[in-house]
């Protein structure tokens, strides 16, 4: 499985999201590193090493949709068009429960679509999923 630490890049204009995830994951035996980006552009910069933070493989991206500057869909398009980054595993984590957003996200080949209000208090279900996912799934290198 995934040896060592796993990076989780949280792209969301609400900094609380990464904070909650950090809190939920801190008691885990695997070492997670939560890196946050405030919008799609910031996320791309982090992935390309152009920011003061950086991610290492293996990593998982948690992506919000409605963000200023570059939104989630624009980020996905840029990501899938980038030869280096196109195989990144992305989960959408949005407040939107609109069918149109969901189908559009899957069209961009996300690994899963989560609605923030439906993943339990304090994202408990998301935390559980992340742990099981990273313990079971081999992520790209």
């Amino acid at each position, binding site marked *: 499985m995934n040896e060592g630490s796993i990076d989780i890049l949280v792209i969301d204009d*609400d900094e*609380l999201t990464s*904070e*909650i995830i950090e*809190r939920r994951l801190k008691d885990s035996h695997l070492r997670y590193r939560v890196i946050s980006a405030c919008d799609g552009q910031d996320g791309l910069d982090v992935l390309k090493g152009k920011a003061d933070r950086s991610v290492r493989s293996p990593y998982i991206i948690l992506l919000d949709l409605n963000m200023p500057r570059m939104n989630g869909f624009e980020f996905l398009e840029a990501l899938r068009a980038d030869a280096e980054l196109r195989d990144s595993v992305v989960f959408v984590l949005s*407040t*939107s*429960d609109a069918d149109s957003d969901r189908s559009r996200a899957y069209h961009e080949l996300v690994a899963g679509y989560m609605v923030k*209000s439906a993943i339990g208090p*304090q994202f408990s279900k998301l935390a559980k999923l992340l742990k099981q996912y990273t313990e079971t799934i081999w992520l790209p290198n």
Partner: protein
Amino acid sequence: MTIRSDTHQAAIEPGVNPAVVASLDGLERAVIEDMRTGVVLSDDTGVVTYANAESARIFQVARDDLVGRRIAELLPLTLSEPEAATDPHGQAQATGATREVRLKLREGADLWVEVVARQLSNGPQSHVLTTVCDITERRDIDFALKRIVFDQAPYGLLLIDGDGVIMSSNEPLNRIFGYQPGEVQGKNVEMLVPARFREGHFAQRSAFATSPLARSMGKGRDVTGRRKDGREVPVEIGLSPFMTSAGRMICAYVVDITERERVERKLREANAKLEEFANAVAHDLRSPLRGIANLIDFIVEDFGESAPRPAIRNLDRMRDRVQNAESMIADLLSYARANQESAKFETIDLAAVVEEVFAAEPASPGLHFETKLTSEPFEGARSPLWTVLRNLVSNAVKHHDRKDIHVVVKSRNQGDFVAIDVCDDGPGIPEAAQSRVFRLFQTLSGPDKKGSGLGLALTQRLVSSHGGRIELISFDGRRGCTFRVWWPRFIRSDLDE
């Protein structure tokens, strides 16, 4: 003697010696004399040699005076001027073609007659047999029909000949395009087409002339007409080709759809705005609320054990209020999105629906449900009706002030509607407050009752958008209230499709 049918035929068919008419005896002659069709024989100089009784009646000339007259005088309108000049005897008419001719008579109203003239060339002398049939009555009906169907139609009508020349237009058509009566007559129909479409219109019109099936024009795209003042008007146009003795004609039906287009556009804009608003609410209001809830959780997590009691209590109260606001947003969204999905139609068995609605309410010891249903199954959209009844029943339970709760659902057929009563024995609704129960964000219960105040507004919206109506029956000083829903038992295309 008996009448032989071949003899009768011989009198009016070409190719038989006309002398036979003169030489007919007795009954045979009487048959021709008595025919309800005017029969006139003329010689090769165009002079009448024989006329029967009906022809004398039609021309209003004594029979004896008819013989010796020129046929061209009797039927002056059958030839155009140049033709008449080269054919003084009127023989060119004798083609066997049917013409409708208006006879100017000295006395009384003009007559319309149908004339057929045929050359009888078999004999030693060339004769022309002309039959004349009085069709005034039929023309009168045609004329009345034209007046009713064409002139008095509630939509614009246009008659165009095969070359695109406007033969006739009715008053509504003139009004749509801003012309005076008679102004468009004789002009080319392209004058009613905006300049940028004229070329295409001409080509299509020419193509249409060869494949003439009734159809609507420009199906699926915006069709506009050009008014006299140069402005364009959105129209819907249907085309019906037909044949006349004067050649192919096209009748165009034109409806001005300005008002419809305007309303549709407004509605589309309003819908788009509502959707935008709903999405803004969904995201922009929900996120900060979620954030607050999360921050409360952080505080409890970080200081839970050591925090002072009053602080913990207030945090709990904050959490409740956040939850209330969130459910309010959810209700508001479902209100905005109500009816956006198309409903499925099925036969609705009300008893089954009500049973499901009762089952959806969490059971409690004091809760009693009862039904008195006498209505028959009907066709309709089940899921909105379910939502309506669910809202009403849960409302009755939620706002009840006692442990013992009775809710009765009754139904009966009432004309095209089924009247469904949801009755409770709760505190009732004061008459002064009844007018505002269906409004958004109105809640009549105290703060201890949960509810965003959207339930009844949503319910009313669902009922009215499906062609029904809802009313509240409750009296001051008496416990209990009844919500009566009138739900249509028919499916209406504009409401349900």
